[in-house]
């Protein structure tokens, strides 16, 4: 915390100095990027008429698709949290042969093209695969189902969660756990009383990123489950069938809902941060 304060101070000092031309060049190029990101989004948010926006939200199909998007994304992030935390903890605390390989495997879903992910998941969930047969025998069908959507969203979101949680655990001094052990904690008790509460914020950030990733997923979901329709697919369908003007209001609502969600979570994480800082 001290070093950040020092850095801030330094930045302040150099900020007071007259910036050189190189700074202005960087700033101009930087502004292009900012405009590039913001302009299309602002245009899309302002283009639909108020009338269209009102009509869209009472449209049952729109309402259901947005709800489905949020609900599957949150559930998928929840599954990532429960199943991903142990692996993140192991990777943060232990060095072992093949650790690099495991880390590379975790990053795979980030680099594989999204439709390929959908196809890969379908190929193990189908009738011709033993896993598909087991799933079928217990009554789970991934093709065209909510379960299928959630499976895909876990697949694409879990790397983001694990990486964030891992860096959270890495930032907890292992000696705090050592001290806890010397005070009578079992390894699991030391985890839940020390490492978990201290890494909690990183885990929350990971969850937010996994949700964001899931809400924006299209390519992998469209392969596994066109119906029931999540919001991005509905937007795509409206665009295909009726054109830009009819897809914009749906997009408007999806953005509003997800932004609200993220601001809430961000506020939550920031409050946690202030608590630690204030102490």
């Amino acid at each position, binding site marked *: 915390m001290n070093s950040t304060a020092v850095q801030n101070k330094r930045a302040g000092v150099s900020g007071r100095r007259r910036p050189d031309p190189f700074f202005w060049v960087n700033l101009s190029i930087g502004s292009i990027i900012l405009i590039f990101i913001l302009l299309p989004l602002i245009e899309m948010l302002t283009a639909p008429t108020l009338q269209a926006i009102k009509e869209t939200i009472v449209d049952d199909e729109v309402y259901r698709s947005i709800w489905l998007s949020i609900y599957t994304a949150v559930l998928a992030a929840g599954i990532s949290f429960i199943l991903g935390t142990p692996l993140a903890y192991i990777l943060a605390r232990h060095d072992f042969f093949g650790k690099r390989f495991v880390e590379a495997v975790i990053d795979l879903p980030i680099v594989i093209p999204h439709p390929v992910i959908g196809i890969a998941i379908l190929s193990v969930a189908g009738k011709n695969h033993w896993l598909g047969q087991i799933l079928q025998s217990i009554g789970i069908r991934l093709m065209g189902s909510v379960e299928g959507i959630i499976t895909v969203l876990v697949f694409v979101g879990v790397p983001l969660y694990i990486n964030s949680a891992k860096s959270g655990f890495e930032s907890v001094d292992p000696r705090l756990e*050592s001290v*806890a052990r010397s*005070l*009578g904690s079992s390894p699991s008790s030391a985890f839940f009383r020390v490492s978990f509460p*201290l890494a909690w914020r990183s885990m929350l950030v990971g969850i937010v990123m996994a949700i964001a990733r899931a809400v924006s997923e299209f390519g992998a979901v469209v392969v596994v489950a066109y119906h029931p329709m999540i919001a991005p697919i509905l937007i795509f369908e409206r665009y295909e069938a009726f054109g830009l003007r009819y897809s914009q209001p749906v997009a408007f609502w999806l953005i509003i809902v997800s932004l609200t969600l993220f601001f809430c979570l961000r506020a939550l994480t920031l409050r946690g941060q202030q608590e630690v800082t204030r102490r």
Partner: protein
Amino acid sequence: MISLKNVSVDYTDFVLDTITLEIGEGEFFVLMGPTGAGKTVLLEAVAGLAPLSKGEIFVDDRKISSIPPEKRGIGLVYQDYALFPHMTVDQNIRFGLRYQGRTGPFKARGEHHIGEWEQEYHRLVDILDLQNLLHRRPATLSGGEAQRTALARALIMKPQLLLLDEPLSALDTRFREEIRHHLRELHAATETTFLMVTHDFHDALALGTKAAVIHKGRIEQTGHIREIFRKPATRFVADFVGMVNVIEADIDGKRGVAVAGGSEIVLMTNSTTKREAGRRRQYIAIRPEDIVLSRKELQSSMRNHFWGKISSIQDHGIAYEVHCMLGELELISHVTRGALVDLELEEGMDICVSWKAAAVHIL
């Protein structure tokens, strides 16, 4: 009694090599060595946090080297305190209480119930003067306050052995004396055996009874602290403890002087010397580099000035070792080649020998 038998720890970049140590019940044992000598690893091995590749550790006759750290009944205080940042001072101290009576060694050591732990809590808070800090978070504490909290947190468990990893080296000088005082007090007030590692011989002298010197993962010498300073067993130990002038003297705490070989040596009056009220025969030590030689009596704040004769001068490469006789007292001073030439020092000449009161260490 804690004994380490042929303990080895193998890290890829570090090896602790067949360490054998015996630490008596209730002792304040100091493990000295330079940074990187393997002191912290040895503590972690005793606490069960670093795996042994060879050897065994016993507490009394209980073999503890194969039981997990939480069942050993060994407390640990790290150099940078390692307080739990998300808990208040109070919560930090009480951290271990939840496990009382559930885990082996604590249960085996008598029927304590909640009231007694509460009593222990208040006793430690009193001794360590933590009353006004209980609701603070670790980030707002000074080094000394954090160290006191860490001590209370470890000692409330009534460990049989307390491991202290450089407890004073991260502290400002003004907190050092305070924590030294607390360590002495706690050691006297508990039945716990203390094992402290330090690279600072001042701390070793101030606190320890017995000591060992560790270097490159091996024990170089074990024994009474005084003996180590008087008779370093190896070249390394001699260099490390600084070839101290160790002198037998009568200490007069009231007047703040030590009488040795007919000379009266002025001491620092601090808590240590006050404790030595009344005359007592003891050893004092002065480091050779703290002894200043001059041809005339110096006008300075140094309170010890004596005239003596140079009995011999020895070349030690970077420094010269000058032996001076003050009556019956022989003192060794280290001087640089430059100083030797400047002062035109020769064997047999008269010389003024000075040192500060603070340079005199009571062993």
